């Protein structure tokens, strides 16, 4: 009997590896052996393949069947290998043309009735296949739209295993189109990155709105500190609406992450809007940074890649969660090591923290209303550690809205107006940093800001003094320079002046008096 061959893709993190699936049928007692480091869910594939093949009208022969997934040293997991295994086995049994199936990549989970069920992570898998030169890909029809988002992929969406058998020149009993197409599980509800309301809904809060605009323009991290009901959550949820659309390569990257986490609905095409993630403060470290047994999966921080990660009531988060965010804040990437492998997920998000100033939340201004003990107040904000806050560029107090602001005549600016200014500022940045790979001021390394783009000594005088007296770290110094550049880009001009630097300094230290 011939050897059955086909191909599949194994995902490690966001990285796909093309896997050769080969099947051999030897005389002997009936057995189905699967080798090549399958995990439990993949080992169960044997039983699904047997039942699905029988119900498609081309049963697996009752001989000794050996299936190998090669390279055998790479751990493989998940149900997306079902289809490839079935095709390889049926090829070995000469129930379909093994030559025809050898060069085609097959992805998909099999139902016992022979139906093809959609799987997660089709986009990164197809990307990897196309990059490896395997452009012919068979996927479950529910994943076809997602697979077709990859340029250069020749995608065939199949409803049942019988369809695939017929494509490769085999005979199958099950008629085409007999079974309905199962939908994608988990890809329901809100699409990531849907804008959360219009900025015009926010009453008053001129300072905070300005800070939000600066954060959006330069991609800076933001801390909003204020009493309950001042509008911190409202402000933060409007930030994604101010951000410009994702660049095409960013869109593919972001969509791939959401495809793996199963939070992507291919009906709307690639994700072009920056995602918005707001994990609850009871979230575990793994749910935020990614992880899980065996091979890790992305968490909220990666799902917020190229978008906004909003931590409401930030001091209530577990300290391990907050500290775990320090690494991606610096490197834009989460590296999760587990016994069975290391997964890398991009996580270049914009961090927005919202916090009450103290447990009762009233310690604003003079803090006369506050009922907290001094120690409790101090302890509360101390949960946001120094190293974390040092990475937050803009630290803003959001004060309660007064009645005067509420009834004052001028209508607040809407998202459209502010987003247009942000887009302009982004365009200026893009042209300034075009020689390098940075897109926003927040990505420019400090050495460049203090080297080639050094400001005149007179401009940075206030900043230098803060550094001298030790009120500022070197990292803080760089971050203030970045904000100063963003302020310049928003007002227009050639180089930041002393006012820009001064304003940047106050925007960063706004909360210091309160704490």
């Amino acid at each position: 009997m011939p050897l059955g061959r086909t191909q599949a893709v194994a995902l490690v993190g966001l990285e796909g590896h093309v896997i050769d699936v080969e099947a051999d049928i030897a005389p002997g007692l009936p057995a189905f052996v699967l080798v090549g480091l399958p995990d439990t869910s993949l080992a169960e594939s044997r039983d699904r393949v047997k039942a699905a093949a029988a119900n498609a009208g081309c049963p697996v022969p009752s001989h000794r069947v050996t299936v190998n997934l090669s390279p055998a040293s790479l751990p493989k997991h998940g149900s997306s290998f079902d289809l490839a295994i079935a095709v390889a086995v049926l090829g070995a049994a000469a129930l379909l043309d093994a030559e025809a199936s050898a060069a085609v990549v097959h992805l998909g989970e099999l139902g016992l009735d022979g139906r093809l069920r959609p799987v997660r992570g089709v986009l990164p898998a197809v990307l990897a296949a196309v990059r490896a030169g395997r452009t012919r890909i068979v996927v479950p029809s529910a994943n076809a739209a997602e697979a077709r988002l990859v340029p250069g992929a020749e995608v065939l969406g199949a409803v049942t295993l019988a369809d695939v058998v017929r494509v490769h020149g085999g005979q199958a009993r099950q008629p085409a189109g007999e079974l309905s197409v199962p939908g994608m599980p988990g890809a329901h509800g809100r699409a990531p990155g849907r804008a959360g309301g219009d900025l015009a809904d926010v009453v008053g809060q001129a300072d905070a709105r300005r800070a939000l605009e600066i954060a959006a323009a330069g991609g800076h991290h933001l801390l909003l500190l204020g009493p309950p009901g001042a509008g911190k959550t409202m402000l933060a949820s409007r930030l994604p609406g101010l951000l410009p659309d994702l660049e095409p390569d960013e869109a593919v990257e972001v969509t791939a992450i959401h495809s793996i986490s199963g939070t992507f609905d291919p009906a709307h095409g690639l994700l072009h809007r920056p995602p918005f993630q707001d994990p609850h403060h009871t979230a575990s470290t793994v749910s935020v940074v990614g992880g899980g047994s065996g091979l890790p999966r992305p968490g909220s921080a990666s799902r917020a890649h190229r978008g906004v990660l909003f931590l409401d009531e930030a001091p209530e988060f577990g300290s391990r969660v907050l500290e775990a965010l320090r690494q991606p804040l610096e490197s834009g990437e989460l590296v999760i090591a587990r016994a069975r492998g290391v997964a890398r997920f991009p996580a270049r998000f914009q961090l927005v923290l919202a916090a009450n100033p103290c447990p009762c939340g009233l310690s604003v201004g003079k803090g006369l209303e506050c009922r907290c003990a001094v120690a409790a107040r101090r302890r509360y904000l101390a949960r946001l550690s120094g190293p974390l806050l040092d990475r937050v560029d803009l630290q803003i107090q959001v004060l309660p809205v007064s009645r005067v602001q509420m009834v004052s005549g001028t209508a607040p600016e809407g998202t459209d107006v502010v987003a247009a200014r942000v887009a302009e500022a982004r365009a200026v940045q893009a042209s300034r940093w075009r020689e390098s790979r940075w897109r926003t001021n927040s990505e420019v390394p400090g050495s460049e800001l203090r080297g080639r783009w050094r400001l005149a000594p007179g401009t940075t005088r206030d900043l230098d003094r803060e550094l001298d007296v030790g009120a500022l770290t070197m990292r803080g110094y760089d971050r203030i320079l970045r904000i100063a550049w963003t302020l310049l880009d928003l007002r227009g001009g050639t180089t930041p002046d002393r006012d820009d630097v001064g304003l940047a300094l106050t925007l960063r230290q706004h909360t210091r008096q309160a704490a």
Partner: protein
Amino acid sequence: MRASDAVGRYGERVAVAHLEQAGMVVLARNWRCPLGELDVVAMDGACLVGVEVKTRRSLAYGHPIEAVTYAKAARLRRLLGQWLAVHEVRAESVRIDVVGVLRPPSGPALVDHRRSVA
């Protein structure tokens, strides 16, 4: 149980006929010891063969061959060792075969002979 006993005996007769036609010499049938039972013991040239016969009337519960697991094949091999210990037979080698007999309601029985499974 009687009906299935009868089917089993019928299957063994069919299997023996098949083995003899294939040139094997049957030495014993239904040999029992405390470890279990060997359906057929035969010589294939200089090779001693322990044969397990499985008979079924339909494929509703799977092919008869599928009912023989690796654990069972391994047990048959130990049984054959026992048989050798109490019989004056010399063999160059030993092996275990499985014969699956499918007896459809009409038409001839279908015999599937798998050699050397353990």
